[in-house]
């Protein structure tokens, strides 16, 4: 793939903006369309684009499988951990309102944290699937 000059230049230009857009979608999922799931896929897409246009092995060094597996676990645990934290704060499992005096405020905080968990888990899993497939060629 690396012979296509136009693809290489365009990909190099686009990848930072794809990542930035991914983070924007992650943090603004409460005001606009989007959220952790879409953001995770977009961030994974930036890595996948790099791997396809440039070099799978460099991309794999940037995102080693051990790190990706840890991140996938971290994302799910962050989500479930918010639920457990709610229990400790005196609420029910995943009742984010327990986080603050004002339930609406607590809900907002809880939603932001679990969306980050979703984003981390989805991005890591998408890259795990991609790299597992790409490894076998």
């Amino acid at each position, binding site marked *: 793939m690396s012979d296509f000059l136009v693809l290489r230049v365009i990909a190099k230009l686009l990848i930072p903006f794809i990542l930035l857009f991914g983070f924007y979608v992650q943090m603004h999922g409460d005001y606009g369309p989007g959220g952790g799931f879409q953001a995770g*896929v977009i961030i994974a*897409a930036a890595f996948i684009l790099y791997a396809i246009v440039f070099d799978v092995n460099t991309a794999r060094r940037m995102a080693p499988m051990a790190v990706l597996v840890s991140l996938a676990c971290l994302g799910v645990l962050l989500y479930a951990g918010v639920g457990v934290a709610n229990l400790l704060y005196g609420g029910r499992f995943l009742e984010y309102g327990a986080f603050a005096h004002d*339930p609406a405020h607590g*809900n907002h905080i809880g939603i932001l944290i*679990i969306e980050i968990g979703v984003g981390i888990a989805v991005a890591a899993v998408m890259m795990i699937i991609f790299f597992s497939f790409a490894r076998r060629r």
Partner: protein
Amino acid sequence: MDKRAQEGLRVIELYLNIILLVFVAATGIAAVWLRNLLASAMVLGIYSLLMAALWVVLDAVDVAFTEAAVGAGVTTVLMLLAIALTGRHEKRRRARPWLPLATSLGTAGLLIYATLGMPIFGDANAPAQLHVAPYYLLQGEAETGVPNIVTSVLAAYRGFDTLGEVTVIFTAGMGVLVLLTGATRRRRNTAAPTEEDSA
């Protein structure tokens, strides 16, 4: 906006829907028809992008977003990788698939028949609009502090479901990892060591 302009917008939306649905049907048939799997995967990507456009026309931007990113983006890449591992041409089969054809046509007929019992498209009094939806629309922002109703439903009111979805995605990723890399390791142990990771 006066009444005529609104009427005009509705007509434009109707034509957009019809055009998009025709293209969706055409790409769906083409994906099945094509023998070249590479072309088939590309056509399925276009199909997903058209579906995303359709969701936008239906004001479901969050779904459109997911469809465009997952359906048109990542799924296409994964299918291309799978084709690279297997082969790009579908095997030609002798037998005429009459039974599968009859089954799918029968199911399609039943489903179309079932739509006759559904409420009219966009009906405000449909059961789906009268259950918990009004509560979410009225109370969602006040209770969660999140203006995007979709996010508040997904993350707060249906938080337990979303935790399950994330767990499903996590399990899928771990399954692929164990299946694919486990198989490579086993083959490497049995066969003579070949060149490492030439991908």
